[in-house]
C-alpha cells in the first residue's frame, strides 16, 4: 500500500468528541476477504481524497446477518441485526454507506422493523453524489474508451432498483460501456446469493458463474465491472474457469473510480 489510509473508528471519533457525517459499513467480506479488502481500500482512498468525514465501526462491527437470513436462520439473523442496531443507535448513526449490496439491502430494508432506521447508500450511489457535488472528478482518463460491461448485483439491481449510479460513474470515465444480453432487471445472478457463496452448488450441468462469464465474454469486454464483493469473487472464478485471465479483468466500480481520480 503506497499511501496510508485514514480510517477513523467511531470509538476514536467519539473520544475526540467528533461526529462523522457518514458511517462506512465495511462488511465481513470487505474486512476479511482478500479480494474484497482491496475494494474497501480503493473506496477509502476515494473518501480520503474527497475529504469525506466518515468513520467505521471497526471491531464493533459484526456480520449484518444477511447470509444467515438467506440460509433460513432467522434467529441468527435477528440476533446479529439487533446487536448491530444497538451499536449503531448508541453512536447515533444516521447515514451509512457500504460496498456490499447484501449489507446494503438488509440494513436498508430489514433493519427498520427491528429498530434500526438509517439512510443507507450503496457506494456507487454515494460516489455518484460526490461526483455531482464536484468533490471528485473522473477525468483521469485511465479507462477512456476501454470496453467495459457491468454485471448488476441482484441485491442492488433487481432487489433495490439501483441501476443508474454505477453506469453514470462509468460513463463519466468515458469507458465504452456495453450491456450484456441479460442486464438490469433481467440480469443473471452470479450464483453467490442466497448463501450459495458458502456452499457447493447442487448437482447440475454447469456453474452459474461460468454461465454469467459467458454472457460477459459475448460482449468482448476487457473489464467486467461490478459492485459487490461476492459477484467479484464469482466472476473472477468464472474468468479463470474460462481461461480468460490475461484478457478480462474483474473490477469493482470503486476500483475504477479510485484509479481515475
Amino acid at each position, binding site marked *: *500500500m503506497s499511501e496510508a489510509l485514514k480510517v477513523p473508528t467511531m470509538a476514536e471519533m467519539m473520544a475526540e468528541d467528533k461526529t462523522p457525517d457518514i458511517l462506512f459499513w465495511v462488511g465481513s467480506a470487505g474486512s476479511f476477504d482478500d479480494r474484497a479488502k482491496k475494494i474497501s481500500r480503493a473506496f477509502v482512498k476515494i473518501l480520503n481524497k474527497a475529504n469525506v468525514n466518515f468513520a467505521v465501526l471497526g471491531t464493533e462491527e459484526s456480520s449484518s446477518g444477511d447470509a444467515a437470513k438467506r*440460509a*433460513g436462520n432467522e434467529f441468527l439473523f*435477528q440476533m446479529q441485526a439487533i446487536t448491530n442496531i444497538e451499536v449503531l443507535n448508541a453512536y447515533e448513526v444516521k447515514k451509512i454507506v457500504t460496498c456490499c449490496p447484501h449489507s446494503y439491502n438488509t440494513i436498508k430494508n430489514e433493519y427498520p422493523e*427491528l429498530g434500526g432506521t438509517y439512510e443507507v447508500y450503496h457506494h456507487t450511489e454515494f460516489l455518484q453524489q460526490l461526483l455531482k457535488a464536484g468533490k471528485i472528478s473522473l477525468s483521469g482518463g485511465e479507462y477512456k474508451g476501454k470496453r467495459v460491461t457491468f454485471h448488476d448485483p441482484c441485491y442492488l439491481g433487481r432487489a433495490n432498483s439501483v441501476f443508474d449510479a454505477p453506469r453514470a460513474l462509468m460513463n463519466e470515465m468515458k469507458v465504452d460501456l456495453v450491456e450484456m444480453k441479460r442486464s438490469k432487471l433481467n440480469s*443473471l445472478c452470479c450464483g453467490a446469493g442466497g448463501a450459495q457463496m458458502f456452499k457447493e452448488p447442487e448437482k447440475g450441468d454447469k456453474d452459474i458463474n461460468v454461465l454469467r462469464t459467458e454472457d460477459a465474454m459475448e460482449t468482448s469486454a476487457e473489464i467486467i465491472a461490478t459492485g459487490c464483493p461476492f459477484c467479484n469473487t464469482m466472476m473472477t472464478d468464472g474468468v479463470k474457469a474460462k481461461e480468460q485471465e490475461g484478457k478480462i479483468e474483474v473490477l469493482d466500480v470503486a476500483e475504477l473510480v479510485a484509479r481515475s481520480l
Partner: protein
Amino acid sequence: MQYIDNILFVALLAAGIWFFAKNIKTLIRNIKLGKDIDRTDNKPERWKNMAKIALGQGKMVRRPVSGILHIIVYVGFILINIEVLEIIIDGIFGTHRAFSGMGAFYGFLIGNFEVLAFLVLVAVIIFWVRRNVIKIKRFWKDEMKGWPKSDGNMILYFEMILMTLFLIMNATDVEFQAMNNGNVISQYITPLFSSMETSTLHIIERSAWWLHIVGILIFLNYLYYSKHLHILLAFPNTFYANLKPKGQFTNDANVTKEVKMMMDPSADPYAMPEEGAEEEIATFGAKDVTDLNWVNLLNAYTCTECGRCTSECPANLTGKKLSPRKIMMDTRDRLEEVGKNIDANNGEFKDDGKNLFDWISKEEVWACTSCNACVETCPVNIDPLGIIMEMRRYLVMEESAAPAELNNMMQNVENNGAPWPYNQMDRMKWVDE
C-alpha cells in the same frame, strides 16, 4: 312443448353456474388455509398494479411474440363474452338475436366479434404450434409432463372449437347472412354450406348455438382444475402482490419476540403467559401449505404455468433440479390434496403423514440463489422465492437440516461475527495491508 328449449337452457345455465360457485367457494376456503398477512396498505398503488399488469397485460409484452398473441386471445375472450350475453337472453326468452334491433351498431359489434374470433383462432393455432411443433423449451420441462401438458393443449382446443362454432353459427344463420350486417368473416364461410337445404342449415346453426353455450359452461367449470384459473385470479393476485423492495424479506415476528426476550436481561424466561393469552405453538417457516401465507396460496392457484420464471432461473439454466414454476405447481397440488382431505373429514384436516416436502425436495430448496429473477419476470407477479425461503426457515430452525457448509458458516457468524473463521478483533486489519 314449445318452452322445452327455454327450460332446458335455463336448467343448463343454472347447473353451470351452481357448480362454478361451488368451486369458487372451495377455492376461497383453500386460500384461507394460509396464514394471515396484511396486504391492504397503499391501495392506490395496488389498483394501479392490477390495472397495468392484469388488465393491461403490462408484463406480457416483455416477450413480444407470445405477449401480443396473448393480448389478442385475451381481448377476444373478453369482448366475445358480450355475445354470450345475447346468447343467454335468446336462450331464456326464446328470442333470436335479441340485440339485432340495434341495427347498424349490431352489425358493427358482431363484425368486430367475427374479426376477433378469427384472430383468436389464428393466435391459438400459433400457440399450439409453439407448444407442440416448435417445442419451445420451457413447455417441455419435467414438471410439464402429463396433466399440465394436456391442460395447456386442452385450453387451446377449447378456444379453437368455441371460435369455430361461433363463426359457423353465424355462417349458417340464413337470416343473419341475409341482413348482410356484420358478417365480415362468416360470409366467406357461408359458401361452404351453399349446397345445403335451409332446414339443414337451421339444424347446423342451432347445433352450433347449443354447443357454443354448453362449451362455455364447461369451460367455466374446467377453470378450477386448470392453469386457466389465472384469467380470474390474475386480478386479485396482482392487487395483493408485494409492493416492498424485492430484496426485503419478512422478519419473522415470532422470532423477534424470542430474540428480544433472550437479549433482554430483565426478562423472566419462566414467566407464565398472561392469563387468557392463548399459548400458540408457532412453527418457524413452512413445513406444509398451511404454514405459508394466503398470498403464497393465491399465487399457487394463479400460476399460468408459462415457465417464464423457470426460463430465467439461474439454477434451472445450469441444470439444477430447482424450477420456480414447479414450486408453484407443487404448492397448488398439495393444497388441493389438503382441501380434499378436509372435505372428506367433515371440515377437519386429518393427518395424512405427508407435507410439502413430499413434493418439493430439499435439493430444490437449497439450489435457490434468492436472485428474484423469477419474481421479476412473472407476468402475474407471483413470488416463488417467498415459498422457498419459508421452507428453508423450516429446515434450519425446526429441523437443523441445513447443508453442512452452511452450518459451518452460521457457526462462524455466531462465534466470530463473520461467515468465515476470522476473529472479530481483526476487523480493522484490511486498512494496513
